[in-house]
Each structure stands twice: as structure tokens, then as C-alpha cells.
């Protein structure tokens, strides 16, 4: 009977990873394969230990409860921010994504005035950093594919 489902699942995943390491190493030259095979072997051994332990007892993990909806929205916006960064440009993407995240993270009792203040502060922060990076640190931030000549 499995007593620690997370450890059981983890051990299976790391078994699979070890198998991938072994499989990939089989076509490599000796010098390139020696380290991956060593690590793969240690990983198999540790996965067995974790698997055996998962049947014997459970080590409790103290995770804080999370708001699944908020995290889901944050991940979507985060990904969108990266995806559109080079396409629609740094300034536009960042302003939209930043302010969307401000709205997602606003407490339900936040007033409209507060929300507007947060968004204005964020906009100021983005614009300052954009020019700081571009002009002082010489880091060329994407202008956007759609806006190129």
C-alpha cells in the first residue's frame, strides 16, 4: 500500500529520467557518456530508495494553500508576456501584462482609485527601466516584429 503518493510519483518520474539518460548515453563517445551514466546510475539508486520509502511511511510537506485560479491566470499572463515580447514589443506587452497582473492580484476590496494608482506606478516603473536598460546599460530591448519597417 502506497503511503506517500507524491514520493511514489516522483520516483517514477526520476526513473523515467534515468532511462532517458541511459538511452541517450548509449550512442555517445566514452568520454561524453561517462558522467551521464554515473549520474543516471545514482539517480536510479536514489529513485529506488524513494520508491521503497513511499511504501513504508510519508514525510509530510508543509505547503501553503494556494489560489488555483490566481496561479492559473498568473501563469497565462506570464507566458503571454514572454510570447508577445518580441512580437508586439517590450513597452506595449509589458504595459498590458503588468497592469493585468496588478488587477489579478488586487484584493477584492481595493478601490478603483487604488487600482489606478497601482497601474500608474507600474507604468512609470516600466518606462523608467526601459529607458535605463536601453540607454544606460546598452541592453537593446525588443521593439516588436509588428512595428519594424
Amino acid at each position, binding site marked *: 500500500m502506497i503511503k506517500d503518493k*507524491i514520493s511514489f*510519483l516522483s520516483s517514477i518520474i526520476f526513473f523515467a529520467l534515468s532511462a532517458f539518460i541511459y538511452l541517450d548515453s548509449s550512442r555517445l563517445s566514452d568520454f561524453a557518456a561517462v558522467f*551521464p551514466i554515473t549520474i543516471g546510475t545514482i539517480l536510479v539508486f536514489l529513485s529506488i530508495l524513494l520508491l521503497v520509502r513511499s511504501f513504508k511511511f510519508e514525510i509530510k510537506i508543509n505547503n501553503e494553500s494556494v489560489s488555483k485560479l490566481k496561479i492559473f491566470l*498568473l501563469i497565462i499572463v506570464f507566458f503571454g508576456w514572454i510570447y508577445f515580447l518580441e512580437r508586439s514589443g517590450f513597452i506595449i506587452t509589458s504595459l498590458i501584462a503588468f497592469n493585468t497582473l496588478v488587477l489579478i492580484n488586487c484584493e477584492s476590496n481595493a478601490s478603483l482609485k487604488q487600482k489606478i494608482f497601482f497601474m500608474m506606478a507600474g507604468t512609470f516603473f516600466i518606462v523608467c527601466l526601459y529607458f535605463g536598460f536601453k540607454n544606460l546599460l546598452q541592453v537593446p530591448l525588443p521593439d516588436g516584429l509588428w512595428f519594424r519597417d
Partner: protein
Amino acid sequence: MTSLFADFLSSLSLLNVSLAFMGVLAGIIIGALPGLSATMAVAVLVPFTFSLNPSSALIVLGAVYTGAIFGGSWSAILINTPGTPSAVATTFDGYAMAKNGNGDLAMSISCMSSFVGGIVGVICLALFAPPLASISLAFGPTEYFWLAILGLTLISTLAEGDNIKSLIGACFGLFLSMIGISVVGGDMRLTGNISFLNSGIEIVSAMIGLFCIPVILDLTSLKGKHLTESDAPKSLRLVEAFSIMFKNKFESLKGSLIGTFIGILPGAGGSIASIVSYGEAKRTSKKKDNFGKGEPEGLIASETANNATVGGGFIPTLCLGIPGTPPDAVILGALLIQGIKTGDTLFTQQSDIVYTFIFGLALATIIMLPLGLVMGRYAYKFIIRVPKEILIPSIIFLTIIGSYSIQNSILNVYFMFFFGLIGWVLNRAGFKASPIVLGLVLGGIAEQGFVQAYIIGNAQDAILANFFARPISAAIIFMILIGLFYPIFKDKFFKKKELIHD
């Protein structure tokens, strides 16, 4: 002696003091931004130094480097994201201190520790540069391999109660470090035929993701402030910080010497120095159970060591022309442009430039102390007061811009995002980020050292002797064994003593 005094006075000219001040200021700000490394800070400022005289140019570059290494601790303490790779070990106790309401104390201790480490490094550079430089040449692949293993033994100290998961995490980090072109042999491996993995995993972007994204995702659900505000009155908590530093004076010195020594080794750098120093501090500490939970001693060990690498790294750079750390390589380039020839004759033929630079470096470290304390206090107060609604998008923004600016590549931003999600899932499954990052950072050095040592040993028909019988290797192996087994023997010995007493 008169010449030395003249060099000292030369370093104290108004121009040099102003340049050191501005360099430290710029360095702290750049270093505090996740993803912007000390190397980048120095590289960005190199063109501005072309019009300066050689010693002033070196002073400003040294000041930027010193400031950036220290600045890296700020984001490590305040948002659990090392600003520079050398601040990895600072997150272990620095962020925990901030979460416990001691963020201001952590900022002050970090500044004082960086000052101590920086000064010890500079003193070693001034007094022992040529003999220490020759030691760095005695380090071959075998020694690098064992040094990386010494760093990896820290995993047992980061275990936080689940050794198996920590070791698996470290193996996962080592696996990540192997993706791409193999360091010896040049084979393409573990990429799964995904072309963008060919160049391997960019360490800094993976590190930002693994450390920072889990904090952001957990913060989204958190009610109230992200850091507990200090109960202490409005001050820098200087007396408290100084008292902690004084109590840990030997640990500070030990961390500084470890940092200087590892800084001397080309390619090792501040990240290994701080990791090894942290591990040693925990092994020998009476409060080892508090490590990882906000123990100032851990923070001192990490910060003294990483700033000591600044002075240490200049030893092989100036004496041998071999850069100790990546920023040293950039500074070496600037030296060559200025017409300074590095090598053993530098300290005799161009001693005026070298000693003015060394005094300038000391000056920059001294300037860093008040500047860092005051700025750190305001940075802490600012972060504490920023509402979560702005803080979360701001941190995400910094992670994106930071990982993008490493190579001006969107790929690194995807890596950061992807590793952030993996890190969050693994974190909730009980796998902490620290062992993964440790494996990722040390994997390349360990593998290169191991394979090269194997090839050399094989050619000499003495593989085992090459691994175990070289004097420095044997000393490092001895340290590894002591680190691994001393706590077990000590526990058994003391338990027996207690039983006899009872």
C-alpha cells in the same frame, strides 16, 4: 616605501574617490537586478574608461565589480533571487531572515560581511599576490573535480530533513548541467533532438526561474505582506549587526580566506566560493540546525566569501594574465587596452599603476560600507512597503528583463519561465531549489575535471594515483571526508559520553 605612499595618495585623488563612489553605486544597482551579473556591469562600463588614465580606469572597474558582487545579495535577501550567481548561498539564510522579520539586520550583516571579505581579499592581493598566484597553477583538473565534489557535499547540509529528495534534486541539477554539447568530446547529448537545447541550459536564467518563480506563485495566494516587518525601531540595527559580526569574527575571517583562495583559482568564481564557505560554516557551527532558517552565520559565510573573490581573482589576473573570474577577464581586456602588461614583472615594472589600483580597490570596499548600509536600509523599507499588487508584477518584470539581458535572447526568458514552473512543482513535492541549483552550477566543473583527470591518468597509466595521490587532491578529499563523517562520529562520541554521564 615613499613610492607606496605616493601610490596611496594618488588613489585618494578627488577624481579617483569620485570614480570609486560612482562605480560602487552603479555596481550595487546593477548587481541587485536579477540576471545582470558583475561581468555585465564591468563590461558595460569598460568603454567609458578608455578616456581615463590606467589607474583611474582600473579603480572604476574594480569599484563596479565590488559593488555588483555585494549588490547581488540584496535581491537574494529581499526576493529570494540571487542578483548574481555568487549570491546563491546568500538566499539560504538571507531570505529566511527577511521572512522572519530580520530583513534589515540581514541587509546590514550582508554589507558588513562583504566589507570584511572585500578587505581581506585586497590585503591578500597586496601582500601575497605573486606566491599565491603560483598556487593557482598547481590546481589541475583533478583538483577542480574534487573542489566541485567538496561543493556538492553541501547538499547534505541543505537537506532540510529529506536527504533522498535533496540528493535526487542535485542529480537533477547535474543532469541539467549536462544538456547540450559535452564539455569533453563535443558530443551533442540529452537534448531530445530539440535544437534550442544544443547550447545547453543558461545557468543564470534557470537560477532566476528556480528561485524566484516559486516565490511569486506562492505570493499570489498569500494574504498580507510578503515579508514580516521588523519590530526593531527605525534604525540600521548597526549595533546588533556589528555585535553578530564580532561574535563571528573567526567565521568571517574563514569565509574571507576561503573566498580569496577560491577566487585565485581560474574559472571557480564567487558562486563556488560562497557555496563552499557556507558548507564549511555549517559543518563547524554550533548552531548548524538553524542554518537555512535564518542563521546570520550562514549569511556571513556566503557574503564574506563572494566579496573576497574580488581581490583573490585579481591575483592570477595581474600576476599570470589568467583571469580568476569572468569579470576579471573583462578587466584583463581593459588592462591590455590601457597598455598594461600583466605578468610577474607587473609588480616591479608598473608598480605605480598596480598599487594605485589595489589602494583604489580598498577605497571602493570602504566606500561600499556606508553606502551599502544606507542604501540597503532604504531598499528593505521600500520592498516592505510596496503593496503586493505591484510587487508581484514588478518581480516578474525584473525576471523577464533580467533573463533577457543575459544574452539578449528570448530563449533564456522561456528557460527561466519553464524552470520556474518545474521549480514550483518540485518545491510542492518536497524538492528544494538549492540542491538543483548546486548541481547545475557545479556539474560542468565536476565533469570537466573528472574526464580530463581520467584522460591524463590514463595516458600516464596511473588513473587512481592521479585522482587520489596528488597532494592538493588528497587534502581536498580529506576535507570532504571530514565534512561527511565528522558529524556522525561527533554525534556518536557525544552520545556515548552522555550515556556514561547518566
